[in-house]
Structure formats: C-alpha cells, structure tokens
C-alpha cells in the first residue's frame, strides 16, 4: 500500500512537465535593434520558466506604446489594450479570476501620464499583479515627444528648444501613496539584476511595482549615460533584497538598505543621483484588494441564490 502510494506520487512528479523557454515565445518581436524591450521580454520568459507556469494560466496586459507590444511576443494569454488603461483591465481580470497571475506592462507615458490616475489608485488597491514600467524617458512609438520622465532640457519634437520642466520621479510618487506594497528599480543593461528583480516581484503577494530603466536606441540613445555606460547607480543591498552579484559591484556603489522601513524607503525613493537600484520597499502584510473583496462575498449555491434573490424582491412586494 505504502509503496503503491510512493509510486503514484513519483509518477505524479514525473508527470509535471517542465516547460521550456520556447513555450513562452510567440511571434518574432518587432522592436528596434538595441531596444531594452527585448531584454525585458527575455527576462520575463526566464521567470515564467523558472516558476514553471502553464502558459495558459498567465495573463499579460499592456497599454499602448512600444513596450506595450510585449503581450504579442509572449505565449500566454495577453491583452494589448488602449493607451494608459492597462491597470484597470488588470484589475478587472484579478477581480473576476483571482486564480490567474497577471503581469502588466506599460511605458512611461502610458503609466505616468495618460494613465496617471489609474497608476496611483492601483497602488492603493494593491491588486496582486506584477507591474512593469519600461521607462525610456520618451514617447517613442509616436516618434519622440517629451514624456513625464524626460530629463530637463531634452530636445524632442514637441520641445525643440529643450523641455521646460523637471522630470517626474515615479519612485517618490509611488512611495507617497497609501498602501504601497512593493517597489523596485532595475535596468535592462543589468540583465542579472533585471531577472532577479522580476523574480522577486513575481513572488510578492500584492502589487509589485517595478520601474525598469531602458534606453531607446533611436530617439534617446544618450539617455542613462548612453544606456548605462556612464550612469551613476547605487545598488541597495539586503540579504532579503535583490542580490547584487559580484560583477555588478563594478557598475556602481552598494548601500545597505532596509526595504521594510518605509521612512528609509521614502528617503531612497527621493534620491535620483545616483539612481537607486534594487528593492526599495516591500510590505508583505498588506491584504490585496481582490482578497478583501472575495473574502467578503458569499458564493451561494443555486438554491440559496434564488432564495436570497426572492427575499430581495420581497422587499419591494406590495401586494
């Protein structure tokens, strides 16, 4: 009897199919050569494989922009929506089907500008989803206009004499919101760090907000010190944070950081030079919005449902 059970469980273990990387690949990406989007796609595919997810049980949702094409190239269920509105769609998926993991992909204009309201409120809702903002500091698909994160003085097609305003700091904006659950920053020119960050975000229960710095080789080739070659960063170090591999230590200083301390996280989020890389904040104790809503609703069987509907109609019954 015992050996039979053991045999069965062994069979079960063997029956679990290990997915290969190409199972998460769809059509050939149509991004420009040298675009950071390629790196994020590959990292995401590696994380999905590492966690051995069934492609049919993952939903990726995006808005509009170069990076928002990502669901086209990822072999899961994907929804490529409209500009700025990825987060409401993700929220709808999570509310309706909390068993489905959701990845939301947006660009900087998509999330911080046209989708700004949804961004702030999504953090407060704290749905359980990985939210990646692929920030290249420019509107690229519409051919080079200033985005909220474009550095001051940058010449773009809408600011031919240079931008007028200081760029928005998305990190401090996130840390200013109530109910923030997870905030990290990474960059596509640091692939190992990128993988570890997405992996960490994936395994966080709550809204994992990750800003990914990446260069647009066509419209902003000089951004981020020409794609990280000359861009000062500081790696946030914590045994429970994003690992800083020895090779990374050559790319910037390291700084001990307690991502559980909201005040420390807020201080780090405000600093931009050098740019903080790693896990800035994490709170594992916050309930997610869908958990709250699902816990409070009943799931009556058909008979109970009809009985309760009948009682509701009764309230309005006059004769």
């Amino acid at each position, binding site marked *: 009897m015992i050996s039979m059970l053991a045999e069965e469980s062994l069979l079960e273990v063997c029956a679990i199919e290990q997915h290969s990387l190409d199972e998460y690949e769809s059509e050939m990406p149509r991004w420009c050569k040298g675009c950071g989007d390629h790196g994020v796609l590959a990292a995401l595919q590696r994380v999905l494989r590492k966690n051995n997810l069934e492609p049919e049980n993952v939903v990726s949702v995006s808005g509009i922009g170069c990076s928002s094409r990502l669901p086209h190239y990822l072999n899961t269920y994907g929804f490529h929506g409209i500009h700025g509105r990825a987060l409401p769609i993700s929220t709808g998926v999570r509310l309706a089907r909390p068993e489905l993991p959701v990845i939301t992909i947006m660009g900087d204009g998509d999330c911080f500008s046209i989708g700004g*309201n949804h961004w702030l409120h999504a953090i407060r809702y704290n749905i359980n989803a990985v939210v990646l903002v692929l920030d290249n500091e420019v509107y690229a698909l519409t051919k080079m206009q200033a985005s909220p994160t474009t550095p001051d003085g940058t010449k773009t097609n809408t600011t031919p004499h240079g931008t007028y305003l200081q760029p928005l700091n998305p990190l401090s904006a996130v840390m200013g919101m109530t109910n923030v659950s997870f905030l990290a920053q990474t960059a596509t020119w640091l692939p190992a760090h990128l993988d570890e960050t997405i992996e960490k975000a994936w395994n966080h229960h709550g809204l994992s907000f990750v800003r990914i710095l990446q260069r647009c080789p066509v419209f902003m080739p000089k951004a981020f010190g020409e794609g990280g070659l000359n861009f000062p960063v500081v790696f946030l170090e914590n045994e429970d944070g994003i690992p800083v591999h020895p090779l990374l230590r050559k790319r910037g200083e390291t700084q001990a950081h307690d991502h559980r301390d909201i005040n420390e996280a807020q201080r780090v989020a405000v600093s931009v030079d050098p740019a903080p890389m790693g896990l800035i904040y994490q709170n594992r104790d916050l309930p997610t919005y869908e958990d709250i809503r699902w816990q409070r609703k*009943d799931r009556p069987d058909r008979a109970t449902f009809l009985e309760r509907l009948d009682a509701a*109609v009764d309230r309005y*019954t006059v*004769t």
Partner: protein
Amino acid sequence: MSGPTPIRLSEHTVEIVSDAGEGAQKAAVAFAQLCAKSGNGLWTVEIIPSEIRPPPHTTGSASGNRIRLAERERVTNAGNLADVVLAFNEMALLSRIQAGSLADDVLVLIDDQWATHDVEAYQVSYRKVLAQARERGATIVEVPLEKETLRHVEDAQQGKNMFAVGLLCALYSKDAGLLEGVIGGIFKGKSRKVIDTAVELAGAGYRYGVANLEQRFEVPASPSKVSKVAMNGNTALALGAIAAGFDLCSMYPITPATSASHALSELFEQLGGFVHQAEDEIAAIGVALGASYAGKTALTITSGPGMALKTEFQGLAVMTETPLVIVDVQRGGPSTGLPTKIEQSDLLHALYGAPGDAPKVVIAPSTIEECYYILTVARRIAEEFRMLVIVLSDANLATGQQLFDRPDVSQTPEQPPLDLSPVPLGTLPYNWDPTTGLSQRLIPGQPGGMGVTTSLNHDSDGKACYDAERNQRGHVMRSRKLAALQQTLRPPEVHGAPEGDLLLVGWGSTRGAIEEAVDIARDQGLAVSSVHIQFLSPLPPGLQDIFAKFRRVITVELNYSDDWNDPLITKENRRYGQLAWILRAATLMDIDCFARVPGRPFMPVEIVDEVNHILGDPPAIKSRTKASAGAKGVSR
C-alpha cells in the same frame, strides 16, 4: 367615516412637496404604498432638487413626489397636470406652478403656519403666492400642518410628513387601518418609539382630515389577484443585474445612475457578486472589460458624461469582441446639463460614440418592469454575439415607481460555469463564421488558446495586421453580427390600428405617455397609432412597411430638434430628434419629430395636443417649406 361624501374618480394625480429634508418624499412613498395595498394602479415619480440642502423656503428647495393613482391596474406614466398639491410652504407650491405641473383648478393643501409666521417676509410671500394660485383658479385649503404636528412632537420637521400622510389618507377616503402596517414597513429598523410616533401623527392627520376637509375623493380600488412589486427603474436594474447572473458591476458615482449601484451594493455580496467603485469612469469600464475578457461578463452603469469618458473603451470592446454591458441612465445634457432630470439625448452618442466604425447593440427599456428583465437579454446578446450592448434607461425610469407583476425568480436563468476545456493549439480566437461573423471566444486558462487580444486591427488568428484586405474583413465581420442579430428580431407591434393618418414612433420611457395619448386621440376619432422601438441598433425589421401605412410619421422624443418656424431654420439646416435622424437614414422616409427638452416626462395631453395640431394642419408637404413654417406654430 364621517364628513362629506367622497367624489368618485377613475384616477387622480397628487403632488407632495416640501423643502429638501422635510420628508415629503417619505410621505409620498407611504401614501403610494397605501394606495398600492388597497389595489390602485400607480405611477410615482420623484421631484428632486439638484443640491442636497438648497436654501430652504425657495423654489429651488422643493422636493417631493408626484403620485398618479387610478382605478385601473396598470398606470404607465406620470400623467398630466396634477389635481391636488400638498405643499409644506408656498415656495414649494410656486415651484410646481412654475414647472407647469399643476392644473389651473388644482386643489392646494398648504401649511397655514406662514400666514402668521414671525418672519414677515414669509407672510407676504405666502399671501402673494396663494393669491396667484387663486387667480389661476385653484382652491386653497389651509391646514395646520406645523401646529398640529407640534402637539405630538417637539420638532415638527421630524413629523409633519407623517401628519401629511394621514391627511391624504382622509382626502382619498383610504382605510386608515392600513397606515400602521405601511409606516412600520417604511421605518423598518428604526426604534419602536420612532414608529409609534409616526403612526400616531398619521392618525392625527387622518382624524383632522376627516373632521375638517370639505372635499374628499375616492379612486376605487380592488386588490390585485396576482402579487405586485413597486420599485423604481434603478432598483429594477439592480435586481435585474443579479437575476442576469452578473457578478461584477464596476461603476463611478454619477446622477441619476448611482442609485442602481446603491441597490446593487447592498445585496450583491450576499448573492455572489460585488460592486467595484473605480477611480473614474474610464477605469470603471476598464475593470468591467478586464473581467469580461477573463470570462465573467461584467456590467458598468453610468450616465451621459460618464458615457463620454467611456467611449475609447467602448471601441476596444468592439474591436476585441469582448462581451460587455453598459447601462446609461440618461439625463439632460450637454455637459453637466440637468443632472437630475430626464432627457433622451444619448441615443446618437450610444450608437456612434466611439472612434472608427464600432457597431454596437443599443436597446432601451420602455417600462420599469422591462428594467428588471433587460439585463438578462443584454448579457445573453453580449455573450452570444461577442458584442458591446448599451442599455439606455433614463431619469424618468430611474426615479419613477410603477407596480408590476412580481418577477418569478425561479425562472432566473442559470449561468453555466466557465468552460476552460483545452482547445487544439492554433485554435483561432476569431474563427468568424463567414455569414454571421459569430465566433467562439477563448478564455484565459483554456489550454491551447494562448495568444494576444489586441486593440489593433487583426485577422481571425488575432494577430495584428495592417493591410487593406484584412482590415476590410475585420470590419465586415464585426458589422455582420448586427445583421445576424437583426434577422432574429420581430417587427414591433402597432398600438392602435395598423393604418391611419398619423403614426407616433417612440423609444424608451416615453412609451406609457405616447400610448395613452394615442388612446385619448383615438377616442376623439383621430386615426392615430403608435409604435415603440426597443432595439435601436440593430433596428427591428418591418419598419418601412409599418410606416408606409400611415399618411404621416413622427417620432416623439425627449431630446432636441429645431422647430420649423424658428428663425433661420430651413429644410436644409433643420436638426431632427435623434430617433427621427436614424429612422430617416434607415428608411429614406420623410419622418418628422415632436422632440422637446422640458426636463420632465411628456404628459399624455401635450402629445394629444400635438396630434390634434398636426392633423389639423395643411398637408405634410407644405409644412416642410420655410414659407409655410410660420403657419404651423408648434412652439410652446
């Protein structure tokens, strides 16, 4: 019962108005329930100020209800000019005179406290308004509402309304024995003391009425053999949403739609669903669309300004063929317009308010009862046709209450669980049937069905493409579904004879008033009929055949059109009512319109006036020219 012999009437309309917060609405609800329980047919509609606590004792503060009660079981609209008004102060009375709501010879019951009030300005204004009402022909009955109430409670604000209920009970010779039950129901959950005081006050009002009213009425009633419910259209939508099996409603507060979500929020969690209040109107539809994409068809409820904000998402629902239902409880526009008042001005917006060619289904309930059932229809169409379905309700249905047969909840359709069975790899997400455009939807979680759903133009494999042929094909397939749906519809039924001099065409909440007007006009010997359109997109079949049997066809709508005799208005530049606009385009027939924006429902008599006016007119062709327009004189 003592006092004068009651005058028997087949129907009567009474308005109860107070300052906002004085409880006239509650009094009206109590009186309406009293009438319903005794077996009268009813329609009630709220009179709502636009602010929560407007300055008291002003016309802008008038709040209350209109109740039309009848001997017949079925009352389909709010009726004509009111026969009785019970006003808590003279400004409330004045507001109803100014609204054109009262008959000239209306019976006015008014609180007499203002005649001797400490504030002299109130005395002056009271005398002035009463003189004005008398001059119009009103009978004034001053009643000591405040004074008598103060004999029972310290603060008359908290009780006058119950005294008023008793007074109306006496005026309409109702059985005072029903008061206790009705009041107990209305104050359910309140303390015993509150209920006892309310019952005591109503009793006092009744006794006062019996002893003092010189004129009393009776609208005979016989209790209904079938069980009836009374609710407003928004409550009916809320219960209907549950019955339709929705489990997510995503919304953002907007008048006059929000009370539907209030009713739903109260019940939904117990019944397996929830209301998500989103951060804005755009997110509200976005969340609904996300849920629908994930396989749980969702609902969003809004009004005109919210519809405007939702248009980009509407286009997305159409392009991705994601089933979705939007309820638009229409109000006066444009912009903020008349937030609490009725208009039917969102029809063209519902049909065309999205970028690009975005075919949608648009349906409109015409009664409160239909508000209950329409969401089951809407959901079914949305899912079977993978379409966006817009339900156009309005402020009249939202705030009006009608008695209708109690829905049999055991007939509620059962929603099957999600079908997540595997499909072969490479299954097309849009396997369009070439004739109907219909296709099988793939749902996240279905093995083998992975792929992107995109807002970009796509072919049946779901992948983005930009060439002429496949763009045309996508458009054809999305549009063809409307034709396929249209083939399943039946021609609408004509109310009245199938041929005649004039056909009135309506949609939405105006049905009751239009059909009642047709009945009156036919009694006058006029060859008038009406037809009511529930499917605005696609239009039902057979309209041309129906229209062709009438000498003239006009739409009757609560939206704007230019009048023929307005300055500068010509055949070339005249703007028509919205249904007329689409019917003219669909039938190439010369369909005229009677379209007005009074911010209140049509009264049947004003439609009868218009019918008389049209049929007394020179032949149709002449009225179409600028030169003869002056003779038409339709402005009012």
